[in-house]
């Protein structure tokens, strides 16, 4: 039966060869991406034309014919170009609102500490990250102590005086920092096996999601004081920030719930089979994977929340947008909306773009090495 061994062919796998080279070089890229067919060629030409029409006049207005020096709008040639002195002269108000001049260093320090906290919170290879994370958790308290003051010789600064970018960042950072953990709790609660907990979380989420933020802001600002006993004085900022936090949490919860639902049942079973209880299962196995999946949604919600904080200018807070409107009401600078809005646009773009790039970087990094 058995054939002599010499008759067996020795099989050797064929040598692999490198993949065929794609058309390279700048010219090849241009042809492939911009002129690959008549439709693409048409679109390319159309786009170039639009850019040609829009960009040079804007640059001329914003830079070449703009006025950079001056003390009021009288110094600007408004017909020719932008009047940037409005930003430079009112810089401090745009940054700090009515925060006392002598105390600006406190806001600056809070900002620098924010950068440190972001570095430790967002960069997982930071040196000494264990202690860094403790600092991240402590940061919101440190920042609020610094900004409010009223201890250790620091002058008390009521929140009504906060404004500009300071206020925008304070609300945005508080909202995001609060909404992620609270959103996790709500999401877990909504999926809980205990009907009471699940019901409470569901009602909370659906109520908040069913009402526009502006309505909630007015509710917090105008109606809440009516319900509280007379003489109770929660300051305006605090009321608004609580509303913003709750609002963001409800959205965050739904994003995270989406992530939780994407985790296969087998992961729960494997964790349970090893004897991990509910919290260990969630903390070590389920949430790390669910949050990873949710990163794009979490960042999306964060960016949305951060931009939504501009709505507080409607209830009498002077955030970046509210401040701009206040400046515009000043006779010295009246009619310079465009300059102010362009400036605000740039500020928001920088922060939001940074968030979105960070999320891409994080996704890339977290999935590296575990691709299936």
């Amino acid at each position: 039966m058995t054939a002599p061994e010499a008759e067996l062919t020795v099989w050797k796998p064929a040598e692999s060869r490198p993949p065929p080279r794609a058309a390279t070089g700048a010219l090849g890229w241009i042809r492939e991406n911009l002129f690959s067919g008549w439709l693409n060629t048409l679109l390319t030409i159309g786009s170039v034309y639009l850019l040609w029409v829009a960009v040079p006049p804007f640059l001329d207005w914003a830079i070449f014919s703009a006025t950079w020096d001056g003390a009021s709008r009288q110094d600007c040639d408004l017909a020719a170009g932008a009047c940037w002195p409005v930003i430079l002269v009112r810089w401090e108000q745009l940054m700090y609102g009515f925060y006392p001049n002598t105390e600006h260093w406190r806001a600056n320090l809070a900002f620098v500490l924010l950068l440190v906290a972001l570095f430790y919170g967002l960069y997982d290879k930071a040196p000494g990250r264990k202690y860094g994370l403790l600092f991240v958790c402590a940061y919101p308290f440190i920042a609020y102590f610094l900004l409010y003051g009223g201890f250790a010789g620091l002058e008390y600064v009521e929140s009504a005086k906060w404004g500009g970018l300071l206020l925008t960042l304070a609300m945005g950072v508080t909202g995001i920092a609060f909404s992620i953990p609270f959103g996790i709790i709500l999401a877990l609660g909504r999926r809980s096996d205990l009907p009471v907990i699940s019901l409470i979380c569901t009602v909370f989420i659906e109520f908040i999601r069913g009402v526009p933020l502006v309505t909630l802001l007015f509710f917090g600002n105008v109606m809440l004081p009516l319900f509280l006993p007379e003489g109770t004085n929660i300051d305006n900022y605090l009321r608004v920030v609580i509303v913003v936090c709750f609002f963001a949490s409800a959205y965050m919860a739904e994003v995270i719930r989406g992530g939780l639902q994407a985790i296969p049942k087998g992961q729960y079973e494997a964790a349970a089979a090893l004897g991990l209880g509910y919290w260990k299962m969630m903390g070590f196995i389920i949430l790390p994977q669910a949050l990873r999946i949710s990163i794009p949604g979490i960042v999306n919600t964060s960016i949305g929340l951060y931009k939504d904080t501009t709505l507080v200018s409607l209830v009498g807070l002077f955030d970046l947008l509210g401040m701009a409107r206040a400046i515009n009401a000043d006779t010295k600078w009246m009619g310079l909306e465009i300059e102010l809005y362009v400036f605000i646009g740039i500020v928001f773009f920088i922060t939001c773009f940074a968030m979105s790039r960070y999320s891409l970087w994080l996704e890339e990094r977290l999935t590296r090495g575990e691709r299936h």
Partner: protein
Amino acid sequence: MNASDPIIEMRGVNKWFGAFHVLKDINLEVARGERIVVCGPSGSGKSTLVRCVNRLEEHQEGDIVVDGIKLTNDLKNIDQVRSEVGMVFQSFNLFPHLTVMENCTLAPIWVRKLPKAQAEEQAMALLERVKIPEQADKYPGQLSGGQQQRVAIARALAMNPRIMLFDEPTSALDPEMIKEVLDVMVDLAESGMTMLCVTHEMGFARQVANRVIFMDEGEIVEQNDPEEFFHNPRNDRTKLFLSQILSH
């Protein structure tokens, strides 16, 4: 509790999925060190039976006692049983965000409260036992199916379980990888582990099982030692099943 007492005891166990009666009056005793293979057509309730032992499925009637602990709704009992019973799944269910090493040390550290160094030392020994120590720092997604299943076995063994449950451990594997997993299971059987395996690997059943159980329609139709079971089935349903799976 005597050493001669059964380690798993099921008395009159019934379970329904909705209106579907999936386990019907199951009575089963498993002795310490016994190796049982459970087979049967799909939908026969064999996986459910095994999953009831660590309460991944809840039974509605009857008693299940595992190593002297009765399975009730008491969460403490359930977690205690689960840490004594290792389980290997058809689809591996490794934790994809953790390395192989972390997969094998997480539960020992957080459930058994082992110091990290000791847990890692033990995990490394187990990875050597399943013959993949060199993969310790990789993520599950970077391994082949057979390697993943061997990690899953090492992960379960890391808890020093007294019983190992296998739920069709080779069904999701490419043919060439089945043997490497079965080799590990044979090695485990020879070390005296109590094993309850749902599998259709009849070669494995012949080689290591003390007893083969055949299930259909939620009932234990027949059980016997492998020799008798394969050559001398008593029940026509068993005979039909064997002829179907052994005819190729």
